[in-house]
């Protein structure tokens, strides 16, 4: 029996945060993300050509190679690629967060209700989520964007309407497995009502699962959203969406390769950072890990 250490809460929290730094991969992910977030938040101050965002053309400076003045070169209409990429981060992060804000609370509540109440509540919610989950996310998003017309808003709406299903499904499973735990029974015996049990007893025990999923989802959402931008059915030029920028350079891969390369790399790093952090997040939230 390995002797147990007994820390208090604040010490415990600090210990856990420190533990996050033990894993080099997590640290790497956090570093990359930190850099990107800072760049995105302070974009107007950190980019030399912030005025170029939005409708702007300057054909005299088009197709310039990467140089000190233009670290990532310029694109086909003369915009500085570096600036576009940084503003592109803004869009990606914004979309990812909005989609989660719109889908997570809704999905969680429905999932917990389905798992806890069972009966027709469970059946209805399960069947609905079945339908949504059966369709690949991208296809579904394409359909919605097709109906509503291509724009960034429509991408967000489409993604939210798919994404809540994942959370409903996860919370359904978690709730079902936890609702017969002794501590839940203890709460019932104390006279706790259903709402209290669902949200004070069961939900807190799902936070680590949710945290991991949300972290990884951030990356996944960005991938889909920029994919749609690439296909031209999401954000459209001149919006500096990363996918859009990549698309604008595909015709010139052989010659002005920098137009597509740098936004692609940027996307890769962003998504990678979320994936790297995902694991570390799980450990952070798992109360019992010693």
């Amino acid at each position, binding site marked *: *029996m*390995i*002797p147990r*250490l007994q820390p208090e809460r604040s010490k415990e929290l600090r210990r856990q945060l420190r533990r996050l730094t033990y894993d080099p991969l997590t640290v790497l992910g956090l570093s990359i993300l930190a850099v990107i977030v800072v760049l995105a938040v302070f974009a107007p101050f950190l980019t030399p050509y912030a005025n170029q965002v939005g409708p702007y053309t300057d054909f005299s400076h088009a197709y310039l190679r990467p140089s000190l003045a233009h670290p990532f070169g310029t694109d086909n209409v003369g915009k500085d690629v570096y600036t576009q990429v940084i503003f592109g981060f803004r869009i990606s992060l914004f979309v990812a967060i909005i989609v989660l804000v719109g889908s997570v609370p809704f999905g969680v509540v429905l999932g917990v209700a389905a798992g806890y109440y069972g009966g027709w509540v469970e059946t209805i919610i399960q069947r609905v989520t079945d339908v949504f989950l059966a369709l690949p996310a991208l296809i579904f998003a394409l359909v919605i964007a097709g109906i509503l017309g291509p724009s960034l808003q429509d991408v967000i709406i489409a993604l939210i309407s798919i994404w809540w299903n994942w959370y409903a499904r996860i919370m359904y499973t978690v709730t079902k497995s936890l609702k017969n735990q002794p501590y839940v029974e203890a709460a019932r015996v104390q006279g706790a009502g259903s709402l209290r049990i669902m949200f004070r007893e069961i939900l807190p025990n799902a936070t680590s699962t949710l945290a991991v999923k949300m972290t990884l989802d951030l990356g996944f959402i960005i991938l889909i959203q920029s994919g749609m931008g690439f296909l031209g059915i999401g954000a459209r030029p001149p919006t500096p969406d990363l996918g859009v920028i990549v698309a604008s350079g595909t015709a010139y891969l052989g010659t002005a390769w920098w137009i597509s390369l740098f936004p692609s790399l940027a996307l890769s790093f962003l998504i990678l950072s979320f994936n790297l952090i995902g694991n570390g997040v799980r450990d952070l939230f798992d109360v019992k890990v010693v």
Partner: protein
Amino acid sequence: MTALLEVDGLNLKIRSEGSLLPVLHDVTLTVDRSEVVALVGETGSGKTITARTVMGLLPKSAVVESGRVTFDSTNMLDGKKASEAVKRIAMIFQNPMSSINPLFKVSRQMEDVLTWAKGSRALENSEKKAQIRKALEDARCYDNGRILDMYPFQLSGGMRQRVMIAMALLRTPELLIADEPTTALDVTTQREILNLLLELSRRERMSLILITHNLGIAHESSARTYVMYAGRVVEHGRTSEIFANPMHPYTEGLIESIPSLDRSRSMGSIQGEISQSDRETTACCFSSRCPYAIARCRSEEPKLKELMPGQSVACFVAEEKARN
């Protein structure tokens, strides 16, 4: 006659988050051939990890700082040399559900055990089946035809434990280590399993180490008992003598804590709880909770001394008493 198993001055630490935590301190114990020895202690006393050291089942974070573990003159701390000797020792665990693989039928698991113990080519199929049947019979698993075909979750607690004993018997061990073999069982089933283990020990001339926190079990089945606390052996000797006249205050307190069936003892209790500093102290590990502690107890570490023939204890107060 040399003892079958000798543990001498074992000091074991566990690496955890950068530091070495003491787990066993100066543990000494011997088991003779065909002897039943009880290793008694509460959670955290170190009894399970002592057994695991003998079997070589330590976690990677464990560090043996000093001491010897010898089984029939083989050094068990040396992985290579011990690998053959370990086949002559078997161990059964507390919770049969988690120690038997729930995915496989009983027959398959027993065949696997036989293969590992004797080598896959050593036995013919029919010989294997015969040995398995015999082991099940020895473990009092009647209706063994049916049992072989079942999955562990289909068996009752007592039956699962019997199957584990049967699997242990397949190795024809000279030493059986039973780690809390009856804790998860009903009291009547517990009695049957205990009787079974004792009978097997007698019949097969198998030494038995019974690890338990249930003093009643130790009292009724063993010839000698070791009492462990905070990773140390605090008292050991003939079981009957230890229970009739406990010398160490912890043993005394522990016995008093047990409710008596005929209400002949009023239930007392030991003050305080075991703490990490007790495990690490260079003084007496029990001094923080001992009602008899004197100044010496809090500054020096008492060593095990044989105060009466066959009875040893690590306690300054007991030493004083014996002198007068």
